[in-house]
Structure formats: C-alpha cells, structure tokens
C-alpha cells in the first residue's frame, strides 16, 4: 500500500523559464512587465533587487556600469541601468530570440504593458 502512495504524491511543479522584460524603480519595485502572469512576482522582485544591488556596489567600487549580462546555462538576463532603476530582459536559452533581437531596442519595448 505504501508503494502505491508514491503515485499519489503531487508531481513537482516545473517552473517555466521566464521570457520577457520588466522595468524596476530604484527601490526594486517592478513597474511594468511583459512576463506571463503565472511567473511568481516575488522572483521578479528578487531579480530586480539583485541587479540593482550589483549596479550600486559597482558604482561604490568606482566602476560605473550601464549594462549587465548574466549568462546561466538555460537563461540570459540582460539588465540596463535606468536612472537608478533597471530595465531587465529575460531570455531562455535555446529559444528563438526574435522578440528581442537587441535588448532594449524598439522590438523589446513595444510589447511592454502596464
């Protein structure tokens, strides 16, 4: 019976890698985004906080930065400094980058929704 219960366990939820962009203010608050509503908002906040923290600490180390490219095995994060806040692009690797050929370019911003 115990063996059968194994199949009753809920299957782990696979978090799809986010594809889209968002802007954040200088406090890490997400202002607008083009990400699916199923993607946890808390994670967006985490990304924003981490990106802003790196920009801020780089400036304190006399290294002013305009852009960060973070390459994971299956996701690329591109963050552009935006008057203390950030414009962040998330692109899963292996997918066609047609939606954002140039991060921050017109193709990337026209899809932004409030």
């Amino acid at each position, binding site marked *: 019976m115990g063996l059968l219960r194994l199949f009753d366990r809920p299957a782990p939820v696979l978090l799809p890698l986010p594809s889209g962009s968002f802007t954040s203010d200088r406090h890490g608050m997400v202002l607008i985004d083009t990400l699916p509503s199923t993607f946890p908002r808390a994670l967006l906040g985490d990304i924003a906080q981490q990106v802003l923290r*790196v920009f801020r600490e780089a400036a304190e180390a006399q290294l002013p930065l305009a852009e960060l490219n973070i390459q*994971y095995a299956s996701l690329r994060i591109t963050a552009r400094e935006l008057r203390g806040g950030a414009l962040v692009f998330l692109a899963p690797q292996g997918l066609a980058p047609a939606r954002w050929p140039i991060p921050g370019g017109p193709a990337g911003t026209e899809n932004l929704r409030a």
Partner: protein
Amino acid sequence: MSERRDWQCMRKESRARPTILLVDDDPDHLDMYRELLGQLPSKPRIQTARSGAQAMALLEAEPFRLMICDLRMPRMDGLQVLSIVRRTQPQLPTVALTSVLDEEFRSRAYALGVDLFWQKPASEKEIKMFLECLESLLGREVEGGFRGVQSKSLVDIIQLECLSQSSLLLRITNGKLTGKVWIQEGQVIDAETDGQGGERAFQQILSWQAGHFETLPAEPGRPRAITKPYNGLLLESAQALDERRTPPGAQGPEPSPAAEPAGLSEIEGMEFVLAVPRDETGPRLARGLEDPKRMGAWARLSLNGFRSLGERLRAGPLEQIEALGPQRHVALAGQGDLEFCVGWKPSLAVGQVRTLMKRVLALWAC
C-alpha cells in the same frame, strides 16, 4: 596544468643554474661562444638560435636569465630582436654583440635598453672582461625595478626628473599596459593610462611594480590636468599604495600568489586580471588593478548573488557575467576554487568580451 608546472620547474632550475640564450646566424660563432660561456663560474646552460624567429620561439618556450644577440643578422636583425624582447620580456637582461664598432648602433642599442653593448672580444684580455661582465649580469637580482635605472622604483625616477626640473614625457610599459606621465619644468602635469587621465591615471601607473620606461621629448602644449606639486602628489600616491597593501601578519599569513598562466598578457584588450578565492583564503592574483581588495569583494558578492538567484530561478549553473561600463568592461566567472574578475577596454563589444573571457579561463585551466 602540467605545462604550467613544467614552466615553474624550469624557472626554479633557471634560478639555480642560469640559462643563456645566444643568438647569431653564424654557426661557428655560436660554437665558439658556447665554449667561452661554458667557462663562466655559474656554469650556465647555453641555448642557441640562428635567427630572430628561432630566438622568439625559444623565449616563449622557457625562461632565460640572459640573452646575447649578434646585431648583424639576415632578415630580422639584432636590433629588431632586442626591440621585441624588450617589449615582451622587459625583465630579461640583454647583451648586444657586434663585430664592427659603430657609434650609431651603440646608441640605438642602448636606447632600446640593452644592458651591455660589446664588440666581439678578440684578445684574451677582452674575453676575460667580457666574461666578467656577463657573470655580473647573471648574478644580478631581476625581481622588480624599472629597467634603465636598476633598483629604482618609478617614484624614484619621477622624483629625480622633477628635482632636476626636467621637461619630458615618460612612457612606461608594464606587460600590455602602457602609461604616460608628462613632466613640465619639474612638475607632473598629467598622466594617462588606458581610458584614464590625471591623478587617477598617475596613481594607477605608480601601482605597477615593475616594467620598462623610456623618456620622450616634452610636449609643452599639453594642458595641465594635475595641479598638485610633485612632492605632494608622490606622497599621496605612496600613502594610497601603502594603505592598499595589507600589513604583514595583520590578517594571518599572506596567501601565496597564484601563478599567472603563460600567454595571459598576450590577450588583446585586457586591462586587469583578478583571481580571488571563493573562501577568502589561499592564493590570489591581481594585475593592473588599483584596488584589488574592493574589486574582489564586489566580484565575489556579484557572483554569489547571481548564483543564488539562478538556483531560485532553476536556470542552471551561472556561466559568466559581463558588466559593461563607460570606463571599462568587466567579465566575472568562477572556475575551480577561484572567482575571476577581468577588466576589458570599453571599446570591446559584449560578444568580444565573452569570447576573450573564455580564452582567459581556458588558459587558466591549461
């Protein structure tokens, strides 16, 4: 890894028993000098090259304590060879040999920074003197110091020029890094090193531990970007350097520096290299950086922060970070137990930074 170990072993061996590189297109001369040099008290190992190209290949392959080069050679002449060696291996003492004494050759050779210009010895007395000079060069300590004025720091050199009210341009090279210091009537008026100017550049240049310098004619039209008197400027720079150096014993034993892989300085566009241990102990390497401690802390924090974020996103391992800035680009990546932070020229595109960083990591892994 084994290649690096071989190179280190060769370096140790070279310290114990010096190796001399002898360059001459005439095989008879090579044989004769090999025999002569064999009489030196330090019993050096002699390697010979019959052309400049062969000499370059040997210099790349193993460390030498001294290079002796004939000036008249076909294709690449001795002056060309010495000029390249001065740039690529500024610490290597060099001797120029000539069969015909020519004042122009002599002054050109000394301008290139050769340690000794010698007419090929003909008599027994000349041979004896020649060998004594070579032995003295072999015995000289080659750690640090700027060539041209042995055992003098860059601070000493600038102080000397300022005290004598000189007007000149000092060009300083430290591997791939080049810096310029303008001195006008005994005052430092400006400095420049890749992408930086003024006092900031001056401090960065002063932080270089060794290299090669040359004096160029003054540029009287150069606008003054540094207004402080030279002695105050040198004092401030020296204090800043002292502050950056950890006092011995203050934080336990100094970590042993990591060995820099061969070929690293050949990578175009690189401004600095910093390797910091993940656990804050052990070996490290910092080259061409003003404040390695601060930059290291930022690099470690950024990599750890994004690693942790990657775990929450389930995006797989963090491979690399490229940080682009108006003054310089920086690439961050972890490899083994080290975190790497490498600075790049801001003119490079992000794709170039990515590719070049991979090359740095590959060199390190070798």
